């Protein structure tokens, strides 16, 4: 499900951190998957001999997941990261389940509650604000 929707993300594949969409309530809530693997380029340096998905990339993955809730054709920039917490390390072999839910919107700003978990255990959570720079299809 949702490969078309994934292609809406503006990021090139080298900077896409969402692999699959599992559930979608358009505009409201989305659940996506990110598979972490040993040959992910950023794990070569973070860290040699101790591969660990960088927390900032988990935030990026959560922000990209939130971006899937924007209307088709919309573009947005990260405006705020709040209350980010990293509960446990994410390592190669982990399948990260990422949930994003719209909590508020005002003008061009949308705020999302986001969570990333592995095997049912919370790995990271945050509140993320996206600033919509191009509204896209408002009927979508």
């Amino acid at each position, binding site marked *: 499900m949702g490969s078309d929707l994934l292609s809406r993300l503006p990021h090139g594949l080298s900077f896409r951190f969402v692999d699959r969409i599992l559930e979608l309530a358009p505009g409201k809530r989305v659940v996506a998957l990110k598979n972490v693997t040993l040959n992910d380029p950023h794990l070569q340096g973070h860290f040699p001999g101790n591969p660990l998905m960088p927390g900032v990339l988990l935030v990026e993955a959560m922000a990209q997941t939130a971006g899937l809730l924007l209307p088709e054709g919309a573009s947005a920039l990260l*405006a*705020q990261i709040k209350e980010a917490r990293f509960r446990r390390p994410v390592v190669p072999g982990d399948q990260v389940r990422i949930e994003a839910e719209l*909590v*508020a*919107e*005002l*003008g*061009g*700003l949308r*705020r999302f509650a986001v969570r990333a978990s592995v095997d049912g255990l919370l790995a990271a959570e945050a509140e993320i*604000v996206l600033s919509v720079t191009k509204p896209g299809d408002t009927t979508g």
Partner: protein
Amino acid sequence: MNEVAQRVRQLLATRLKLAKAAEEVGDDTPLFGPEGLGLDSIDALELVLGLEKEFGVVIDNRDVAVKVLASVRTIAEYVQSQGKG
């Protein structure tokens, strides 16, 4: 009005990073812009969420937000006009 205004001031202090103490924010101090507290649109969203939680008032429209979030007084008046507070 005074009690609601005091709760609004408290909300500003707890949810936002203010440059001055909440007690020093006057009822008519502009919340946005260089003449006032200098809050921005991200602060406005934070404030809208805070007002919903504290008073149960919903502001989901930018035009309403611009009018209501002008000052402590305009927020307190809006809360009371909605039968809250």
